[in-house]
């Protein structure tokens, strides 16, 4: 395997190599395996300590699965994930449990991830019970601090999850993820359910914590304006592959992959006048399924710039500039490095 083609400037805390997650498709009365959903199909990237990597892409392209596989909440089919000195993919269960406090996840679906029979106090304290020896009073203080940090009133501590609005529940999940002072957090759509003001509070909070404790984030989001705000670099995923990875400003100023271009052009303006004049690239053509990915480039069925070669040969990943790589036949680069997403 070649070196990562778009490595961050500093030494990586997290490094992912050729990660694959395939879910079996079972059919017939005997539930025989008749195929596989290639949810994640060979992705590689690094995240430096203290860095935020944004991960964006179409619904169903494999973002959550990538994040979950990195923390081994789902078993990878192939590939390696290293966090610090530890190989997550091969760590035995006991070792993995000791690593857990350092790596946390904020889930996409807040309600489903909160136990309805526990109060907020207990939910946030749960990881503290499991992994620390704090006294009751210390725990209580810590929980109240965390609630304050995410903008939840201390008066709510005795309430159960159902008594909260969607946005309030998401903040409970964030407070819980922060409880053990993790080094690396996978934030899976952490702010999608929040109003913009609270989104801003939470993003500012994540940034403050990062500045104070050197936290490292994988920030999965479809909100490109927030990704642009919080991410240092951005990886764009399509059908299980990373098609482009680049420093934030470069990506937003001049996207190279046709999918990235289409994605950026689809962001609505929050102003009806500007919205009326926005130029949008509308994708047509068949939306492929990860159970039957197209031959050649994964994007070829919908790419407005598709060439004959795209339908037969998967593009190699080319480094176009320091820290920037793209997997597209139409983009020429100085060197082919073949590790970001092409299979």
């Amino acid at each position, binding site marked *: 395997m070649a070196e990562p083609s778009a490595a961050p400037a500093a030494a990586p805390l997290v490094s992912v190599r050729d990660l694959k997650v395939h879910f079996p498709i079972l059919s017939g009365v005997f539930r025989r395996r008749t195929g596989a959903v290639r949810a994640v199909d060979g992705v590689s990237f690094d995240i430096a300590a203290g860095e935020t990597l944004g991960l964006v892409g179409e619904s*169903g392209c494999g973002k959550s699965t990538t994040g979950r596989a990195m923390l081994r909440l789902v078993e990878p089919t192939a590939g390696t994930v290293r966090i610090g000195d530890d190989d997550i993919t091969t760590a035995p269960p006991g070792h993995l449990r000791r690593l857990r406090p350092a790596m946390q996840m904020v889930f996409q*679906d807040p309600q489903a991830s909160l136990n309805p029979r526990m109060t907020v106090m207990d939910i946030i304290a749960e990881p503290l019970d499991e992994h620390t020896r704090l006294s009751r009073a210390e725990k209580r203080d810590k929980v109240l601090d965390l609630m304050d940090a995410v903008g939840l009133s201390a008066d709510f501590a005795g309430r159960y999850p159902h008594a909260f609005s969607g946005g309030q529940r998401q903040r409970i999940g964030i407070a819980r993820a922060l409880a053990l002072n993790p080094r690396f957090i996978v934030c899976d759509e952490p702010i999608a359910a929040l109003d913009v003001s609270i989104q801003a509070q939470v993003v500012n909070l994540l940034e403050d914590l990062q500045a104070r404790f050197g936290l490292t984030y994988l920030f999965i989001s479809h909100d490109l304006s927030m990704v642009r705000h919080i991410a240092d670099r951005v990886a764009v995923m399509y059908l299980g592959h990373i098609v482009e990875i680049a420093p934030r400003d470069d990506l937003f100023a001049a996207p190279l992959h046709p999918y990235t271009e289409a994605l950026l052009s689809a962001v609505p303006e929050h102003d009806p006048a500007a919205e009326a004049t926005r130029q949008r690239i509308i994708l047509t053509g068949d939306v492929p399924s990860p159970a039957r990915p197209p031959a050649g480039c994964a994007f070829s069925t919908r790419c407005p710039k598709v060439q004959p070669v795209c339908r037969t040969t998967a593009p190699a990943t080319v480094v176009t500039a320091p820290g920037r790589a793209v997997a597209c036949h139409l983009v020429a680069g100085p060197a082919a490095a073949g590790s970001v997403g092409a299979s």
Partner: protein
Amino acid sequence: MADGPTVLDVRDLKVVFATRAGEIHAVNRVSFDLKAGELLGVVGESGSGKSVTMMALLGLLPSPPAEIRSGQVLFEGEDLVTCGARRLKAIRGHRIGFVFQDPMTSLNPVFTVGFQIMEPLRRHLGLDKARARRRAAELLDLVGIPDASRRLGDYPHQFSGGMRQRVMIAIALACEPRLLIADEPTTALDVTIQAQILELVRDLRRSLGMAIVWITHDLGVIAGIADRVMVMYAGQVVEMAPVRDLFADPRHPYTRALLATVPSVRGPRADKLQAIDGQPPLLLAHPAACSFAPRCAHAAGSCAVANPPRRPVMPAHEVACVFDMARARPAPVLDVAHG
């Protein structure tokens, strides 16, 4: 679009939760109406009562702890508050479609997605199994899920977050309802698929005259699809305006603060995002004063004395504030008598 017959008319709806810590006044005398083919966008602070309002009018809040303390919900002339549980059940999922904020909990994990889409088709429209199945595959395809017929046999956990959300949308649209209530229906969707869903919704409004309530935090979506916008804060409607007026000339201090917090993909990038300082009130009683006053940059003594009623400031533009934050007059101007 907005001159069709009135489909929904909500008047003075008030919802209270009984909790151990006392009553929580989550929705306080909310009124709005909606015409056929019209799309009302609903925005507002997290916890401001958007979801509770909609759940209440669909009769979906468990009671206790919830209680509809007052108000009427007229759907095509019929009061849903008093019509009874059976009648509501016949209307829900048939003439009123709805998408909840939390797709994983509203889909049943033990049934296939296909079964859950076919259920309303068979129950309300009486389709046989084969036709329901065909229609279900069509609907899944319509919301952009590839390989639709195969995926009917999958369970919710085999779908991604955004796909589950689209399954909910497919179920809501299954019976071609007169009214669609969509609570954060696209939070888990990327912009391209979101655009596709919005396009679909536009078509349905045109072709079926479907009236829509669309709750979202995404002001870009509101700008693109809403006819009118309702802004909520602390269980009350603080501003209601045609979409262009709301963005060009917001009159309530909360709306103005909200619009100021939105970051952009295209403009300059801010180093620190703006947030509105302070926290919303706990609503342990019916608000006797303006609920936003403690966080409002323009608050004056009068704001703590009375809860300002909604009043028109321009045609079709109403605001619940004693001041008028007109763009031409940035300084607060006291223009109503109160006390």
